């Protein structure tokens, strides 16, 4: 991989990876670290990317996602990372800004629900692309996405029912 190839890949995908990593970790500083490490991984082993298996974006998102999960395991921020059926706890939403409430609700999701939800809702990847990014079969991805949405509907019910309140303070 030449410098020009790296620069082109970085320019095309840095924002997607950064936002995804931020939403996965809840921290912009951690997101910077993860995106940096993802591109270093690509530079060290460009042969790992197989064009026939999907777009570079899905490949890079997969690297970033794996690094985010590793980091979460190391920091023990989640009770059980492998439990993709976990039900998230509820959230106190009184007197809070809507965006902050949404961010916190997403942070409450188990990582295996959170990654597919972020890729589907924010990055608007297709189900096939999500499967490649998270290295899972289609039924598993659909199931995690469904559970993530159900969890969020439950956590965010007060906001969904009373649209507009509480609002952007």
């Amino acid at each position, binding site marked *: 991989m030449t410098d020009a190839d*790296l*620069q082109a890949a*970085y320019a095309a995908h*840095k*924002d997607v*990876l*950064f*936002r995804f990593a*931020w*939403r996965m970790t809840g921290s*912009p500083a951690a997101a*910077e670290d993860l*995106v*940096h490490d993802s*591109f*270093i991984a690509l530079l060290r082993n460009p042969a790992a990317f197989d064009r026939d298996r999907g777009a570079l974006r899905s490949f890079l998102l997969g690297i970033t996602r794996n690094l985010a999960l590793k980091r979460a395991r190391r920091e023990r921020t989640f009770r059980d990372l492998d439990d993709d059926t976990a039900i998230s706890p509820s959230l106190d939403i009184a007197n809070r800004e*809507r*965006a902050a409430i*949404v*961010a916190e609700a*997403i942070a409450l999701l188990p990582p295996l629900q959170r990654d597919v939800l972020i890729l589907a*809702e*924010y990055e608007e990847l297709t189900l096939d692309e999500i499967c490649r990014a998270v290295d899972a079969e289609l039924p598993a991805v659909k199931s995690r996405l469904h559970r993530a*949405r159900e969890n*969020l*509907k439950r956590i*965010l019910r007060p*906001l*969904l029912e009373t*649209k507009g309140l509480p609002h952007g303070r």
Partner: protein
Amino acid sequence: MDDDKKLSELLKEWQLPSAPASLDVRVLGPRKPWWNLLFTGSIRIPVPVALALAATVIVMAVALLHRPPAPPAASVNLADFQPVKDMHVRVIRRSE
């Protein structure tokens, strides 16, 4: 509006900024001044173009080496020089 659509709209309220410039520096290295390119830059050109340029340079160099020497300038002898003895000045006007 179904619940999924409502949820999607609510989720979109959490927007994030683009990657910061500090990340560019970490991944790509510090940006160098433009004139640095004059000393350390490189360009990629197709082999046929490179060969054509090399051939042109060689042909020009050979032509310069085999150029016949310039003839010596003819010497001028002013020994028999005679100034004009009788000068008639004639002014030509536009109306003539």
